């Protein structure tokens, strides 16, 4: 089926300009639509995960206690799930497009695993050198938060996204401030401010996308 209607049909400049705007907005929305999901998934993983950890430590949640044998694996599962979900969403977003930006995307993708391994290895190394369990429980959440913050900043620079910039700064602040609350309250700080910031960002993004439609 071919449709070879020639110019004349819409010889109104305003109409053509509206056509350009509408089409480019449609492309933008198709590209941005998964972002609230991505932020939301991370938000839930942080909120639930760190609340579980907080509830597992002695002196943590005053309302109820969860065995660490449950909290730790569930936390790991939530984070692994969020990483898998963002990898899938990221790959779907860039499908069908290749070229110079592939390199940046690939480097950014690898950065998450590389940084994750490096920060975890540092923690294990510190423990091997006598870092106490209590200090380790302060190190890991903050290291994780600082890593995410830094990578979000890189993402903001790569794709010129203010939302990622804001998120990155929040993660850095949360990661840097949480240790001052001591263990295990630092986990609560991570859950509420880290997870909360992600969820608020998800909602703001979703609302803005809806309004733009």
């Amino acid at each position, binding site marked *: 089926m071919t449709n070879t209607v020639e110019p004349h049909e819409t*010889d109104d400049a305003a109409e053509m300009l509206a056509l350009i705007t509408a089409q480019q907005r449609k492309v933008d929305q198709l590209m941005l639509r998964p972002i609230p999901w991505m932020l939301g998934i991370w938000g839930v993983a942080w909120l639930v995960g760190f609340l579980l950890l907080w509830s597992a430590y002695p002196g943590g949640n005053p309302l109820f206690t969860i065995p660490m044998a449950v909290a730790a694996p569930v936390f790991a599962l939530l984070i692994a799930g969020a990483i898998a979900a963002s990898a899938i969403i990221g790959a779907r977003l860039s499908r069908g497009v290749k070229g110079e930006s592939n390199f940046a995307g690939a480097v950014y993708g690898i950065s998450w695993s590389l940084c994750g391994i490096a920060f975890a290895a540092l923690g294990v190394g510190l423990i091997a050198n006598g870092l106490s369990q209590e200090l380790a429980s302060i190190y890991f959440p903050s290291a994780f938060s600082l890593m995410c913050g830094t990578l979000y900043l890189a993402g903001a620079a790569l794709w010129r996204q203010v939302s990622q910039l804001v998120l990155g700064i929040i993660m850095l602040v949360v990661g840097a401030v949480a240790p001052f609350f001591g263990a295990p309250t630092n986990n609560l700080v991570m859950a509420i401010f880290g997870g909360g910031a992600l969820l608020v960002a998800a909602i703001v993004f979703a609302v803005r996308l809806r309004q733009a439609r």
Partner: protein
Amino acid sequence: MSPVHQGELDPVIHAAARLKITATLATIPPGDRIAFPRLQELLDMTPGNLSTHLRKLEDAAYVEVEKTHQGRTPVTYISLSKAGRRAFEDYTDALKQLLGGTA
């Protein structure tokens, strides 16, 4: 609303379908290419319709078409050429000028 004078606007992209294609390709960063099926998805056009208009854009050297293989399946990648990107910018500027803006 001032009427558009045919002579002032690039006839290659001054047609709804080709303008939509060009506008879509312009959102992809320079140096990147997009696969035919993905472009079709973004445009909501039939493959035949899209091919026809792409050929016209290619004839005007506004679009570069690259045919490769992914394993055994042939894949076509499309991108806006330098001339195409410039033509699109000139076209939008011309529209804005016609509408009384200061482009």
